[in-house]
């Protein structure tokens, strides 16, 4: 028997990999991959454009999540939301960047596991509140925090939101991924109970929490070490001078 599977569409995947390796502009990479895939599947240009257009209109619900909250967040930022978030966290003496992010990880993962995925998010929680608070806590403990470390704290704030969301939501029974898995397995003639799928996600969810929380604790130590090293270098330099 001959294989009926055409391997040509894989060219589109190759374009993506190559594009990102060459650090080409991501939007151009995607456009190039669209054309490559379409041509490899022998689609005429009009059919390809129509297919792209149909998908582009159908998926326009995606950017709503980012764009709709921005007006309120932007307005509040103009009147000092981020400054106030930083001032508020400065009053909590025990706060460190790592500890704030561990608290956020806990809340985010638990609420996502309860199906409340809209409780966090990058535009409405991380940018206005979580990242400025973590940055302020680090700055307060270690004045003169380098720009590199600031950027690192902010990136970890975004990472924490993702980890909490991904590994929390999948142990919520009514989540789309579980419905998807059930549907696909049913098509292959296997029945699974969504509750069991959710339950067997728990060991991974707990492991993800432990690994990421441990890294957040190390973030505090990393900041401390780097600043100590910088201070030592500075005092060594000034000691060297007459």
């Amino acid at each position, binding site marked *: 028997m001959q294989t009926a*599977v055409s*391997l040509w*569409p894989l060219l*589109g*995947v190759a374009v993506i990999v190559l594009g990102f390796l060459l650090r080409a502009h*991501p*939007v*151009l990479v*995607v*456009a190039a991959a669209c054309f490559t895939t379409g041509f490899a599947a022998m689609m005429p240009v009009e059919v*390809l*454009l129509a*297919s*792209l*257009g149909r998908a*582009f*209109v*159908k998926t*326009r*619900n*995606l*950017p*709503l*999540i*980012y764009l*709709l*909250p921005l*007006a309120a967040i932007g*307005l*509040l930022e*103009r*009147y*000092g939301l981020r400054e*106030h978030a930083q001032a*508020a966290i400065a009053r909590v003496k025990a706060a460190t960047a790592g500890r704030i992010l561990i608290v956020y990880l806990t809340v985010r993962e638990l609420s996502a596991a309860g199906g*409340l995925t*809209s409780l966090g998010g*990058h*535009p409405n929680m*991380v940018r206005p509140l979580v990242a400025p608070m973590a940055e302020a806590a680090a700055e307060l403990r270690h004045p003169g925090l380098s720009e590199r470390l600031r*950027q*690192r704290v902010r*990136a970890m704030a*975004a*990472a924490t*939101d*993702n980890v909490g969301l991904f*590994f929390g939501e999948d142990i919520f029974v009514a989540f789309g*991924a579980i419905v*998807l*898995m059930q549907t*696909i*397995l049913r098509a292959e003639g*296997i029945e*699974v*109970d969504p509750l069991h799928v959710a339950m067997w996600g728990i*060991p*991974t969810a707990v492991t*993800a929490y432990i*690994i990421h929380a441990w890294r957040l604790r190390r973030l505090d130590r990393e900041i401390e070490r780097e600043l100590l090293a910088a201070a030592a270098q500075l005092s060594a330099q000034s000691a060297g001078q007459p």
Partner: protein
Amino acid sequence: MIFKLDYFYLLLGAVLALIALLTLADRSNPRRHTTALFWALYAAIYLAGEALPEATAGAIMITMALLAGFGGVRMGAPKHLPEAERRSSAQRLGHKLFVPALIIPGVTMACATLLKDVKLGGLFLFDQKHLTLAALGCASVIAVALACVMLRATPLQAAREQRRLVDAMGWAIVLPHMLAVLGLLFTEAGVGKAVAHVSTSYINMDYKLAAVAVYCGGMALFTIVMGNGFAAFPVMAGGVGIPVLVNVYGANPAVMAAIGMFSGYCGTLMTPMAANFNMVPAALLDLHDKHAVIKAQIPTALPLLGANILLLYFLMNY
């Protein structure tokens, strides 16, 4: 339905059109004409939507990609209040500033859970198919209204602030959207089938641990390429999960599915293709390195992928 998702498409379309106009009038933007054209085209997608001929919508998408890809989308010089003024305003308003910010998640949650089944005059209050999005739309509008009243600002000022943030993110906003299109095209062209064919034909799976590693690693790798675990699952479950793990090694399908999907999520943490989780936040947080969020996530994702392989190996026969 009273709050249809379509209304929020129109609202966003109107805001994008306004952003295009504000950009056109902004002389501080070195590429104001092409930038304005970019946002105007995007506005058309939201305002006209399904009324656009499909090929026209496709041509709009490609034009936007070319405008963004060749540096035609830039930002103007944003007008902030001076830092001292922001600080004194923050002191004056205090915790009141948190209220509209927390209203967005709070109201979204309340609408999506408590008001889910509420009907008025025989109509559902919210779009049932897009419950969370419709709820988020309502919450955002309420938050803007409250912020305007509280800060004595005009809706136009809110639109200017929205433009400042949209400008700062630039083309990164449309990247997730275009990747979603590519994902649909991949499915249409049969990329999934081809990958499953290649991975099952050339890898020896006579050892249980090797089979588990191929399945979990394949989920992660395929998710890295497609940017989405949902696209990877049918391929890897159909190619390795069911025929090898379940049928040969007697794995419990629920364990195979759950841990497989989580292995895919490890891939999501490591790929620029999951732009809405990894690239957009880097733009939102003004990170110099576009891949800073991915770099922060890799040390969590790789050990977790290893843990998943071991968890599946030891738990799959329960």
